[in-house]
């Protein structure tokens, strides 16, 4: 561990102490009531819905979502019997204790049994909607910087994409396809009951107890206008009563670049440049120097060329350490966790550090009154500017990165100063710090005079502050042109949520009723202050010298959005066979027009536990549940102030004085409202072979109308787009998840968890008149995102009848466009069409887990199939005229090498600038983890209650035909994909 890491760990320890001190545990009060917690042996996770009964007695109860129970017993000398399907039954003599901790061991593979459903929890058997729960073990032992990475390949219908790589990768989550054309398709994230707008990478994944994903409208409708993209419910860890438990989990690892395309070296570049200037004819060796500028020749002779990507990258390192203390008694539960994450990415200067401190605590004040908090403080540090990877990928290798004195060149190619040094960011001074307090608190009152009625007040706060400071000195191109530039930016977020929840539950004997009512208000305000200053006497004071600047340009903005909501939900179950859930939510959102502030979102769902029927045969199928739901949810993901016509800054000067100017920039739309999704879902949950194989099949159709479209309009308006509610899209899909024990042979078990999903997306309507919108590339009957353009029809060869073709001006070696309508000319109106599909034909994930004694080996395979994307790496204009940029090594058409796949290396081969498309399907071995749990007898001898060591690798192998950085990444000239290997240890005592 480096010196700075030791210092960080010390700082972390100080914080832990500071926060632990006020955690005063309240004294026990003797009572005839037994409280306890049931946990699972290997993960220490709570066991929910376990039956707790007094042996030979009548008192019985079930554990709640925290694995906790309260039971009135006749005597503190009774024995409790704790049982649960899938677990070995345990008998616990109380022996005078009023608080117990029960540890259960699993007997078979399980779907998690208690489900967080939003504004409460439900038993899995009672759920009527489509809700996927992600096992907390998926969060373990992996180099995740964000909790959503645990969702990748984990559950059907949740597509997780790493759209950009780096120390803090950008992770996109798409649930059941694209319901919206231009509004956000990000799901709503709710952390401990409170909607969370920040990056999930600012929450420590090790503090997470469970992840639940609401996929269909009946589940998501309780989040009304924010539910249509699905909802991810994140629940953080809680303490368990009993002896304080301290645990540590930490890993260190390294990462290396993988899948880097083969870029041209200096020699290859010189040859390609000469060939290009020579109109596609291969040069003789003595022609090559003539094609190069003087400085290019010098670099070629001196060094053979510069590997710009090599200079911009490194071997990455990462480490994470989490220390937590948890415990409690029958009245108080606490979990205190601190963590440090330190990632140095494969790109130089690409660093991500995170420090978190979490206190989760609940306190029973009176039998009818309790309160609690889930609070995290996080500091994230993204300081440091990496190289410009787009420029580094394009940069001519025959240029100089450094001056003779070792400093960065400002213009690496003296004859072409268009090109800055791609490494200039490495010379900038950059500080980027975020502090965030996210806290969710509640007060709960049980109203004893009405059995089953309770009131809960939830209060959430998200108070975040970001500070960014950057200075470009005279050693950078940006700084040299203006004698130093400082860019300062501060933003402050203050979000609050207040929820009033009334809940009534009643057990009628054979049937159960559960009613929830909500009134909530939310507000989110982001204030931003920025200052750009330039023209300084020198670079010494970096961004601390704005007072001496020649030019100061301040900037300030405020963004505020507010919501008012009411929601009611009724769950009724009869005899554990028939289930019904009805919800209705009404939302008001400030960003919509005065006439459309409010929307109502109802839903209804039915469930039938067929296997609970008396007539259900014993046989291969042990359990079957059928679910049917229909409901409305919304998408309000439109920025505030879209209903207003706005102006933009366009200043001029009078002499040497600034003359403020404004011009219209945005057309307001006073009629804006939300998108509405109508979703129908039919689901089956089944178990066969004595629960050895369990599965879920869901079929759904969603029709989203009143789409919030940033519609491109005729530029004749003087403004080129407007946000409107127009059109409709449809998503249909099927999802299957199968979990089974493939092998069970004593010490050796093999579990497999497979999921596959397919979604078909289709625009149903645009402007109500059946017309396509070619300008925006939206076509009725086609998916929202399409490849639309001319069709590649090979390469014009010598001897072809060019003069008589649709491209009479073409020369051999040019791209041949397909004349689709055969009218003898290539035109935008009639010769553009759809090329492949941007929507995968299916996505799938497979997790295999092998356990042998104390060893466990798990491997996750993910795949995306049937995607065609344009590949910018292969674009015909990538080299620029006169070859001012470089590219991948590839073959070109020449008369001697008349290929039919790629045109000649010269200008004019592709006058219509069509992109080159490729199959972007892939299969990836994403994670492999090997862990060893110390034998209990051994660990107790060491004084620890459990101990585990593990090694894990990410991105170990990828199978694809894609030429470029990675088929998963969006931008292909960006930070490369990396392979990460970590080794870690976890123990608790």
């Amino acid at each position, binding site marked *: 561990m480096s010196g700075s890491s030791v210092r960080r760990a010390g700082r972390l320890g100080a914080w832990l102490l500071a926060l632990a001190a006020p955690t005063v545990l309240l004294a026990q009060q003797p009572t005839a009531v037994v409280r306890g917690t049931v946990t699972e042996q290997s993960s220490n996770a709570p066991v929910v819905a376990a039956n707790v009964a007094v042996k030979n007695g009548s008192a019985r109860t079930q554990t709640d979502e925290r694995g906790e129970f309260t039971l009135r017993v006749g005597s503190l000398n009774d024995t409790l019997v704790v049982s649960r399907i899938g677990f070995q039954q345990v008998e616990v003599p109380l022996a005078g204790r009023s608080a117990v901790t029960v540890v259960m061991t699993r007997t078979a593979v399980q779907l998690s049994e208690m489900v967080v459903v939003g504004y409460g929890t439900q038993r899995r058997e009672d759920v009527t909607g489509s809700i996927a729960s992600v096992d907390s073990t998926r969060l373990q032992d992996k180099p995740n910087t964000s909790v959503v990475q645990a969702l990748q390949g984990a559950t059907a219908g949740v597509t997780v994409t790493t759209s950009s790589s780096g120390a803090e990768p950008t992770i996109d989550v798409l649930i059941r396809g694209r319901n919206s054309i231009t509004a956000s398709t990000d799901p709503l994230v709710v952390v401990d009951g409170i909607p969370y707008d920040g990056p999930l990478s600012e929450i420590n994944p090790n503090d997470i107890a469970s992840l639940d994903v609401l996929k269909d409208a009946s589940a998501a409708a309780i989040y009304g206008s924010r539910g249509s993209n699905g909802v991810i419910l994140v629940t953080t860890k809680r303490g368990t009563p009993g002896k304080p438990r301290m645990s540590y989990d930490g890993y260190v690892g390294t990462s290396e670049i993988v899948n880097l395309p083969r870029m041209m070296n200096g020699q290859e570049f010189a040859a390609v440049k000469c060939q290009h200037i020579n109109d596609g004819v291969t040069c003789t060796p003595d022609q090559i120097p003539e094609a190069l*500028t003087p400085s290019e020749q010098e670099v070629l002779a001196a060094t053979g060329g510069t590997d710009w990507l090599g200079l911009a990258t490194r071997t990455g390192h990462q480490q994470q350490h989490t220390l937590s203390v948890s415990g409690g008694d029958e009245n108080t539960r606490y979990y205190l966790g601190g963590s440090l994450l330190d990632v140095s990415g494969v790109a130089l200067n690409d660093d991500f550090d995170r420090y978190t401190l979490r206190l989760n605590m609940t306190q029973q004040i009176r039998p009818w009154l309790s309160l609690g908090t889930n609070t995290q403080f996080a500091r994230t540090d993204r300081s440091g500017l990496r190289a410009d990877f787009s420029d580094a990928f394009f940069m001519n290798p025959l240029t100089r990165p450094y001056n003779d004195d070792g400093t960065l060149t400002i213009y690496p190619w003296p004859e072409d*100063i*268009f090109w800055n040094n791609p490494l200039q960011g490495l010379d900038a001074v950059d500080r980027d710090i975020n502090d965030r307090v996210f806290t969710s608190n509640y007060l709960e009152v049980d*109203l004893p*005079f009405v059995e089953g009625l309770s*009131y809960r*007040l939830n209060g959430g706060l998200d108070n975040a502050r970001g500070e960014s400071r950057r200075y470009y000195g005279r050693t950078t191109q940006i700084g*040299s*042109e*203006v*004698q130093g530039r400082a860019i300062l930016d501060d933003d402050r977020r203050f979000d609050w949520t*207040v929820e*009033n929840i009334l809940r009534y539950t009643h057990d009628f004997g054979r049937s159960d009723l559960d009613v929830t009512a909500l*009134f909530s*208000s939310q507000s989110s305000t982001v204030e931003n202050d920025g200052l750009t200053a*330039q023209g300084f006497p020198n670079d010494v004071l970096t961004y601390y010298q704005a007072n001496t600047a020649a*030019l100061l*340009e301040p900037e300030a903005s*405020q963004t*505020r959005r507010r*919501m008012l909501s009411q929601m009611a939900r009724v769950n009724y179950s009869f005899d554990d066979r028939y289930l019904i859930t009805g919800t209705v939510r009404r939302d008001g959102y*400030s960003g919509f027009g005065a006439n459309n502030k409010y929307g109502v979102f109802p839903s209804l769902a039915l469930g039938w536990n067929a296997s609970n029927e008396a007539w259900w045969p014993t046989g291969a199928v042990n359990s079957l549940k059928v679910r049917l739901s229909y409901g409305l949810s919304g998408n309000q993901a439109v920025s505030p102030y879209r*209903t*207003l016509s*706005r102006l933009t800054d366009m*200043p*001029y*000067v009078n*002499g*040497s004085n*600034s*003359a*403020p*100017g*404004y*011009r*219209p920039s945005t*057309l*307001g*739309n*006073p*009629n804006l409202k939300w998108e509405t999704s109508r979703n129908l879902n039919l689901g089956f949950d089944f178990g066969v072979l004595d629960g050895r194989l369990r599965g879920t099949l869901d079929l759904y159709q969603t029709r989203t109308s009143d789409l919030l479209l940033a*519609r*491109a*309009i*005729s*530029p*004749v*308006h*003087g*403004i*080129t787009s407007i946000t409107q509610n127009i059109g409709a899209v449809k998503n249909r899909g099927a999802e299957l998840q199968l979990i089974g024990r493939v092998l069970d042979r004593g010490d050796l078990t093999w579990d497999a968890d497979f999921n596959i999903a397919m979604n078909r997306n289709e625009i149903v309507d645009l*402007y109500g008149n059946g017309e396509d*919108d070619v300008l925006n590339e939206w076509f009725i009957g086609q998916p929202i995102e399409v490849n639309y353009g001319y069709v590649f029809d090979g390469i014009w060869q010598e001897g072809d009848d060019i003069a008589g073709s649709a491209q009479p001006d073409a020369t051999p070696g040019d791209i041949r466009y397909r004349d689709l309508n055969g009218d003898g000319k290539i035109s*935008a109106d009639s010769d553009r069409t759809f090329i492949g599909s941007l929507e995968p034909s299916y996505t799938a994930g497979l997790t295999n887990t092998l356990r042998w004694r104390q060893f466990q080996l798990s491997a996750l395979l993910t795949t995306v199939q049937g995607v065609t994307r344009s590949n910018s790496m292969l674009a015909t*204009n990538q080299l620029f005229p*006169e070859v001012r940029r470089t590219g991948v090594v590839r073959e070109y058409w020449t008369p001697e090498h008349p290929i039919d796949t790629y045109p000649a290396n010269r*200008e004019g081969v592709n*006058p*219509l600038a069509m992109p080159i498309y490729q199959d972007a399907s892939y299969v990836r071995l994403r994670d492999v983890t090997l862990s060893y749990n110390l034998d209990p007898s051994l660990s107790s001898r060491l004084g620890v209650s459990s101990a585990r060591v593990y090694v894990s690798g990410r991105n170990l192998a990828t199978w694809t035909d894609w030429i470029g950085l990675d088929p998963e990444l969006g931008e292909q000239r960006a930070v490369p994909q990396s392979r990460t290997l970590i080794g870690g240890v976890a123990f608790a005592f």
Partner: protein
Amino acid sequence: MTTASIFRRASTVAALAAAALAATACGSDFLVEDPPDIIVADNLYTDPAGFEAGLNALYAEVRREREGRSGNNELSAEPWVIGVDNGWGNFISTSERVFTEWGANTHSQQDVFYDTWTWMYQTINAANTIINRAANPDIAWTPEERDRVIGEARLFRAWAYRILTYMWGPVPLVLEESNGTTIRTDWERAPVADVRAQMEEDLLFAEAHLPEVTTDASRLSKAVAQHYLAELYLAMDRPAEAQAKAEAVINSGKYQLITERYGVQATQPGVPFMDQFLDGNVNRDEGNTEALWVLQWEQNVAGGGSNIMRRYWTNRYYNIRGLAVSAENGGRGIGRLAPTQWALDLYEPGDDRGSAFAIRKYYIYNAATIPSGHERGDTLWLTSHPEEASDETFPTTRKWEWVDPLNVSGDPQYNDQPYIRLAETYLLLAEAQFRQNDLAGAAATLNVVRRRAHASEIDAGDVTLAFILDERSRELLTEEQRRFTLLRTHTWYDRTRAFNGRSGALITPRDTIFPIPQAVIDANIGAPMPQNPGY
């Protein structure tokens, strides 16, 4: 527990719950948006200062002509300064290719057409917003103040329609501020005559209400309106009215050609003609009597902007061994554009406009290493020669040379520049006189311009349309919107074919009018938007 105590408890809880609900129900305006940080039309155009801010943006719109469409790249003026008889693309990037190699490269999906169209209609919408909202009777101003504001806005509108009609011929005529509730998909192209009638009305209004001169010619004056009217009447084949408007400017007594050395380099070798382009000499209050309209830039001032005229016109001489970027050599250029060989050869000996002060004809060897056979300080002389792509030895204009004294190799350029000069008004007058067969008058007018440049005097027998166009090239090389002049005189195709050594053979009659941007056609789903022929 008694019923009464249950009731008491229940009411306590209900009161608590009600209080909690009340605390979160924040009144009826909780969802009303009132952004404190955003300028909207309704709160800007409420007083004269708001309208001035609207006009400032229109000045900034015009200034874009000499800025890049994409950062420091793609000079916005490219469509009308190259692909003509006196300008060509010396280095081919995407947009230069459109106006140099023509053919399949000149199509409706090229960004240059979309960008230019969008820029013009953005200007028109900004002008319409001012014109419409100035009618609001609640604004505290005098009718004169109001009409001056409307006059400026209408002149800008005419400026934009002028470029639109020359680029595309018939175009939609929009006179109302765009509104979010009335998005149209059925625009129709108005005949050029209708658009010009509106331009005439706008310019006449501006002429009537703008001040005769403005202090530094950075703001619009009556003379600018009259200058554009003179040109418009020539385009409308009404030469007598053109003559009257041109003479109104010339005879106003407010403007004179620069005939003597003046200003910042008056004591150094030079010619009067070039003094008016030097930083520090350009504005009226700096001694320039010739400029009718000066575009303003300023370093280190918000709104100061920067232009790329030198970047685009000055050549890449530093690619020649022994030459390095310096102020003496003209600063840093990338030589995308160049005058044609024909244009460089138009000058007779002794014409100041063709002298080494106006045309870059030599460089001084100044680099760290000098090729053998030369000494540092030696002069490398350039001569005109046939146009061939990427020629760093090609001569070019010196009108745009400028360097940042703190950063000689810096890219951005901050000097003010003449946009309309009285010399061009004279040339419009000569054309009007020629069109009315007043050849002697035309010769006399041309001689005013020629005399200042120390070119030989001509007589009536020399005056032809070709001569006038040649004279315009000599005088206004790289300043003029050359394509528009040639289209106005119906000579673009023949003269470009004859005189542009790079593109002459590549153009076809189709290219006299540009393709309507595909986005405009594709968005017009409610009515046909016919493409120009041949695209």
